[in-house]
């Protein structure tokens, strides 16, 4: 009897414990080593589910070449690039080599550690910093061989095509003593090569299809505030001489979209913008969204060392107008859509698995994963989309293509996971608007803080209301006017009668 009771008790305790464990494991499905949040219309922080979660990493030691030997650990990987042949190129800067991996399973394809020059001699790279490949799957590979101040162009079989070194000073665009120190390279659909050269504030260098230097492109404008201008006028000649020159900052990351627009990350003075979208003329055509802020973190005015504007180090153009940039200050990845709406934020610094120590380069691979190269950990970290992130990506993609109706069920799912996502409310509101459910549309559009569409919905709602109710409203008005008229008349007459009665008396 006693033992029976005891075993029953044990069972209950066990069951309860299991239940608790199950429940908690459900609750912490989004257990990621960083905070995930977003900014709402009023620039307040709103915590969200994680859009991307850590999904392992690529380590040099675990990659085996054809003979089954490890290629050895990466050393200061500087860039990671997904080429059109679906291979991943990792610039293993410290080991002076390029590691080519298969885009699907990250298995070994090749290691490029040098090339044969025109004289038949073997040449190696010195601390390469960037890589890119032309759109054509059999096209050229461009390697920014920074330590040797050159860009090396190899063909499909890693044979030398051309070396860009000491670019010609064609129309006197380049100053005397110009030092060509390529950092990042990208090539567009027309085989134009864009190069960021170190300490070059004139902008990005363009090289044409013949590998000749053409022009500088997209110089970052220098912003002088009124306050700085006043100070400058007030200061003496000696003070002016000692002031630092106000020169443009430099770009530090590049990507190109299928239409040939260049996405370039840089350090903005005010922290309001981290990425430029440069059109072929070199003008910035990026959209900034409702908050007029595409500079990463908004809430930056604290005084500790961890505060301050986000420091963009690289940008990746993903599909459907979505782009992400990498912030090395707090190790966060900010993702925006083509209208400049902040979609989600993830990533963080730290020693935990899935955190960064010194992130330098970001890329998206064919599996939809985000790859981030870490200079200190010597690995490439991988992140995969959660249901939440995937839903947003797909819905924004549909919106970008103009299929807003198809996005409606996705936005509904997003709202189930995150009831604070304003873009989803706007998406749903717009669909109700086109379905003619104006009152519902107003509700959603107000939650999504879209004044423009709210106003359209409201105007339609008001018209409907008037059409339905104008008849009795006008009737009531007429009745009231007539009644008021009659009452006044009656009163006047009565008064007149009383007055005349008074006078008669």
């Amino acid at each position, binding site marked *: 009897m006693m033992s029976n009771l005891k075993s029953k008790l044990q069972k209950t305790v066990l069951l309860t414990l299991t239940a608790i464990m199950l429940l908690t494991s459900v609750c912490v499905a989004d257990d990621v080593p960083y905070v995930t949040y977003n900014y709402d219309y*009023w620039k307040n922080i709103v915590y969200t589910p994680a859009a991307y979660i850590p999904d392992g990493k690529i380590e040099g030691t675990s990659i085996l070449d054809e003979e089954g030997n490890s290629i050895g650990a990466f050393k200061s990987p500087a860039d990671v690039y997904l080429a059109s042949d679906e291979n991943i190129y990792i610039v293993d800067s410290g080991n002076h080599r390029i590691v080519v991996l298969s885009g699907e399973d990250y298995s070994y394809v090749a290691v490029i550690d040098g090339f044969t020059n025109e004289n038949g001699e073997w040449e190696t790279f010195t601390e390469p910093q960037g890589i890119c490949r032309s759109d054509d799957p059999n096209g050229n590979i461009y390697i920014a061989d920074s330590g040797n101040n050159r860009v090396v162009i190899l063909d499909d079989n890693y044979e030398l095509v051309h070396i860009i070194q000491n670019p010609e000073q064609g129309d006197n665009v380049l100053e005397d003593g110009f030092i060509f120190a390529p950092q990042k390279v990208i090539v567009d659909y027309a085989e134009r090569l864009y190069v960021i050269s170190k300490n070059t504030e004139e902008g990005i260098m363009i090289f044409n299809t013949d590998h000749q230097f053409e022009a500088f492109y997209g110089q970052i404008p220098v912003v002088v505030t009124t306050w700085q201008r006043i100070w400058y006028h007030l200061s003496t000649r000696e003070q002016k001489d000692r002031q630092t020159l106000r020169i443009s900052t430099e770009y530090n990351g590049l990507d190109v979209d299928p239409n040939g627009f260049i996405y370039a990350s840089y350090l903005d003075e005010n922290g309001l913008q981290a990425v430029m979208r440069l059109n072929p003329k070199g003008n910035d055509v990026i959209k900034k969204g409702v908050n007029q802020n595409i500079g990463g973190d908004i809430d930056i005015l604290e005084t500790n060392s961890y505060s301050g504007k986000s420091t963009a180090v690289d940008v990746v153009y993903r599909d459907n107008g979505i782009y992400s940039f990498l912030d090395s200050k707090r190790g966060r990845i900010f993702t925006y859509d083509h209208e400049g709406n902040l979609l989600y934020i993830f990533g963080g610094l730290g020693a935990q698995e899935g955190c960064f120590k010194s992130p330098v380069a970001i890329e998206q691979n064919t599996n939809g994963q985000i790859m981030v190269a870490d200079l200190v950990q010597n690995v490439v970290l991988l992140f995969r989309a959660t249901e939440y992130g995937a839903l947003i990506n797909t819905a924004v993609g549909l919106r970008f293509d103009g299929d807003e109706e198809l996005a409606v069920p996705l936005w509904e799912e997003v709202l189930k996971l995150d009831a604070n996502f304003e873009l989803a409310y706007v998406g749903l509101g717009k669909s109700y608007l086109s379905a003619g459910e104006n009152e519902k549309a107003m509700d959603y559009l*107000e939650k999504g803080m879209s*004044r*423009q569409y*709210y*106003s*359209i919905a*409201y*105007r339609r709602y*008001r018209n409907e209301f008037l059409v339905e109710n104008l008849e009795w409203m006008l009737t009531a008005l007429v009745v009231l006017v007539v009644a008021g008229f009659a009452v006044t008349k009656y009163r006047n007459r009565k008064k007149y009668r009383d007055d005349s009665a008074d006078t008669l008396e």
Partner: protein
Amino acid sequence: MKKYFSRDKWKYSFYCLTHPADGFYEIRHRDRGSVPIALFYVVFYALCYSWNRLGASFIVNDTNPRSVDAVSELFGVLLLFLLLCIGNWSITCLMSGEGRLKDIAIIIGYSLLPMILTLIPATVISQIVAQNEEAFYYIIVFLGTAYSMLLMLIGIMTIHNYTLLKTLITVFLTIVAMLIIIFCAMMIFSLVSQVIGFFESVYTELLFR
């Protein structure tokens, strides 16, 4: 009570709207005004202001509804009113103004009437405007505010028996005086808190001895 809230006094505040110069003159010289009514207008204005911030339609309203707090806004308006009265009084005392503190309080309170009378209909009208039509709302609010400012100016001019130029100078100096008062208040606050802190630490020292 009857003296302050008589029907005549209520009506007189509206008379001041349409005849500011005469109206404010009689407030100064024939005691036609009432401080409690002026205070009532100030409180009522604060409530209208909060209601407008909270209740105006989404089209014209860019206020975060979570940031609206009627009580703290009421105290803010009352504090501003107090500062304005004291600031103006302390300046006009030195600049041979004829108005008493009582008159200043009354004309400032009565001058808020146009703002009250426009904020309420403006908030209602905001409910039925769409984008591009919000100009109606802004015109109403602007007219009310402008008229209130004008009344305040005429009021100060009349009760102190000033010229226009002198009034403008006084208004400017009033603002300066208000800033000085705020500065002094904050300084006293911080000094007093330091003194209190000192005695507190002496007390704890003694306690742990």
